[in-house]
């Protein structure tokens, strides 16, 4: 992390790491304290709850397995939102891009029987990326050529993707409606695809009961790639410059329009890859309810991770652990798992509004430090 980005104002690299972790860590602690308070007020045993939460997330090999499995899609969608933030773009569309990646990859995964795994699996992954790129680039193109705000367009495209993906597996009604193209006739009235062929699946690591698959390496590779792209390449420099100041970037000769489209495409591709990896590694099929929460969690994770790729890994670990520990927490203490969502929401609130944390703990802003590294110019109206 110390090598990340050009040195700004703080003299010592360790100090920078410390400072960048300060707000998120305080936000987490404050959220946990608030959660404890809620439990205390409702007469629950907070100690036993948090102990269960920790045990359920890290207490055994199986617990670690669940945590890591939950981390994988969060890393991708967190990266997706983070990359867009770097260019000053707010990608609310990770959820739709995730679904498009899922549909594209499952289409490859359930067809083409007989392809060797070395071709079939990468092809399915690439199609997953492609689906996401397509869905991410559209708002980028619309922003550049029509000025349509990417927040509105990505939200709307989420609905389109949800309905489109649902239609692809539509089981047909009772009055002879045409079923969707990816629907598995043997599933009867249930809307879902057939199972992904073995040759397109990401293999399991360790024992299959742990359900950890090679997607974890794909995720880590994506983290390193995005870090390299953002901080070690010209493209990354251009993305970050556009995010800092679009007008200055244009004046400096950066092709701002192209950079916006490219960034949204990359963001979409990452979310699409999340869908592909979840499908090929874990679900092995698609049904409309598999969309889930990960697209929106990506926003929290990117913010909590300070939009840095390595920060995204840390915050994914946190959110993966919170999700993984919820069941054990309820098992041990009887506390409703909803408390986890309260804590997650509070973490987001505190990170998105660092003024609260600064005021609570009387942290002075350092000279030259932006209030928020993340929200960029998107809201300023460029």
């Amino acid at each position, binding site marked *: 992390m110390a090598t990340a980005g050009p040195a700004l104002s703080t003299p010592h690299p360790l*100090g920078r790491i410390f*400072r960048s972790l300060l707000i998120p860590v*305080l936000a987490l*602690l*404050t959220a*946990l*304290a608030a959660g*404890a*308070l809620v*439990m*205390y007020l*409702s*007469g*629950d*045993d*907070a*100690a*036993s709850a*948090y102990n269960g939460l920790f045990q*359920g997330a890290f207490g055994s090999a*199986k617990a670690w397995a*669940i945590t890591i499995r939950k981390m994988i899609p969060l890393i991708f969608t967190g990266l997706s939102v983070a990359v867009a933030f770097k260019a000053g773009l707010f990608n609310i569309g990770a959820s739709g891009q995730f679904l498009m990646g899922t549909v594209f990859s499952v289409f490859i995964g359930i067809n083409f029987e007989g392809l060797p795994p070395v071709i079939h699996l990468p092809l399915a992954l690439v199609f997953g990326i492609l689906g996401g790129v397509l869905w991410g680039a559209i708002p980028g193109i619309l922003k550049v050529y029509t000025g349509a705000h990417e927040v509105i367009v990505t939200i709307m495209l989420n609905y389109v993707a949800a309905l489109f993906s*649902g239609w692809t597996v*539509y*089981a*047909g*009604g*009772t*009055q002879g*409606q045409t079923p969707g193209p990816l629907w598995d006739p043997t599933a*009867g*009235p*249930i*809307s879902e695809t057939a199972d992904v062929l073995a040759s397109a699946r990401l293999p399991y690591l360790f024992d299959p009961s742990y*359900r950890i698959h090679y997607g974890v390496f794909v995720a880590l590779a994506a983290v390193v790639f995005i870090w390299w792209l953002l901080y070690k390449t010209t493209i990354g420099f251009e993305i970050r410059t556009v995010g800092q100041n679009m007008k200055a970037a244009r004046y400096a000769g950066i092709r701002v329009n192209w950079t916006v489209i490219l960034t949204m495409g990359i963001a979409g591709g990452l979310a699409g890859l999340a869908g592909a990896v979840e499908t090929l590694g*874990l*679900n092995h099929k698609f049904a*409309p*309810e*598999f969309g*889930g*929460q990960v697209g929106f969690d990506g926003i929290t994770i990117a913010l909590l991770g300070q939009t840095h790729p390595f920060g995204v890994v840390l915050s994914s670990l946190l959110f993966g652990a919170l*999700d993984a520990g*919820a*069941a*054990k927490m*309820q*098992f041990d*203490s*009887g*506390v*409703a*798992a909803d408390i*986890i969502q309260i804590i997650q929401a509070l973490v987001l609130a505190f990170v998105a509004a660092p003024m609260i944390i600064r005021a*609570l*703990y*009387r*942290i*002075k802003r*350092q000279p030259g430090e932006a209030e928020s590294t993340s929200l960029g110019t998107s809201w300023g109206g460029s």
Partner: protein
Amino acid sequence: MRVFRFTWLFALLLIGALVLASCPAPAAPAAPAADQAAAAPTEEAHAEEAAEPTAEPAAEVEAMEFKIGLVTDVGRINDRSFNQSAWEGVLKAQADLGLTDEDVKYIETQDTKDYADNMAQFIDAGYNVIVTVGFALGDATTEAAKNNPDIIFIGVDQFQGEALPNLAGLIFHEDQSGYLAGVLAASMSKSGTVAAVLGTDLVPPVVAFNEGYIAGAKSVNPDITVISTYHPGEISQAFVDPEWGAATAKQAIDQGADVIFGAGGITGNGALQEVATHEGLYCIGVDTDQWETVPAAQPCLISSAMKLITPATAELIAQAQDGSFAGGNVFGAAGLADFHDFDSVIPQEVKDLLATTKAGLDDGSISTGYGN
């Protein structure tokens, strides 16, 4: 580092202390169990009711170690529907068998991908019986049952294709519930026209409800007109379309129906609520006692065609405990819910007819004609 000031360092310590301090306080020896009972408001009554008879026998049976876990479908334990009914069954078994509060636990599933993990919590903790609630958990339950032959699994609403000795699928004679609803509807109808607003016919239990309903209505009045309408959409829409339910109910009312049976999740609830806005008409709910679940339907709701999950779950757990448990499909009883405020409106001879019909269905002397 200039920012390294006492003020916030102090605040940080304070917060840390708060986290730690808030923990041990309620953790005082006897507190947790009591706290837990109080924590789940809707379960309070049951928990206490269960706790009292437990107090004495608990000491004797302690050595026996019989633990029951329940995994919900995505949703809450107090959903006033399947999850809650099954959990009440567990609590009933707890009371019947003299188990302590520590012996029964549940996990509310947050994500459809977590079914197996949630079951694993109970498996790893050495539980004897695991109840899983809902059709959607069927595959995961079957898999867990195969891998853990020593643990008994009860799958509520899970039809068993192949019988496993340690897995019982608790399913219901929906046609019998529907039959009773039909008898009630035809007895209360003045216009000679009744209706049913239904989820999709892609789902066999819905068809069973409807076929039973028609047969029951005709058994009272062979000339009765029954307008039954299935939702035309696919499964994912058919049960969550209250607008369609209301519109369809309205249509049936326009055609003269004066008692309407709503069977199809939220779609059916939409029908019930529509009927409630019309003076002098009756409606009948489904699955659980909808007097509790759809208060807006109370002006018209004379009863509900129920799946009696609670007693059946308790019974299966008792069998697991005494060793008489057998796997495969197990049919739970069907019945009508309480009449609530309509108790005085429904004539005694109708109540008698319902009682004899129920007895006839139970002993097999009355057939609904469904599935034969």
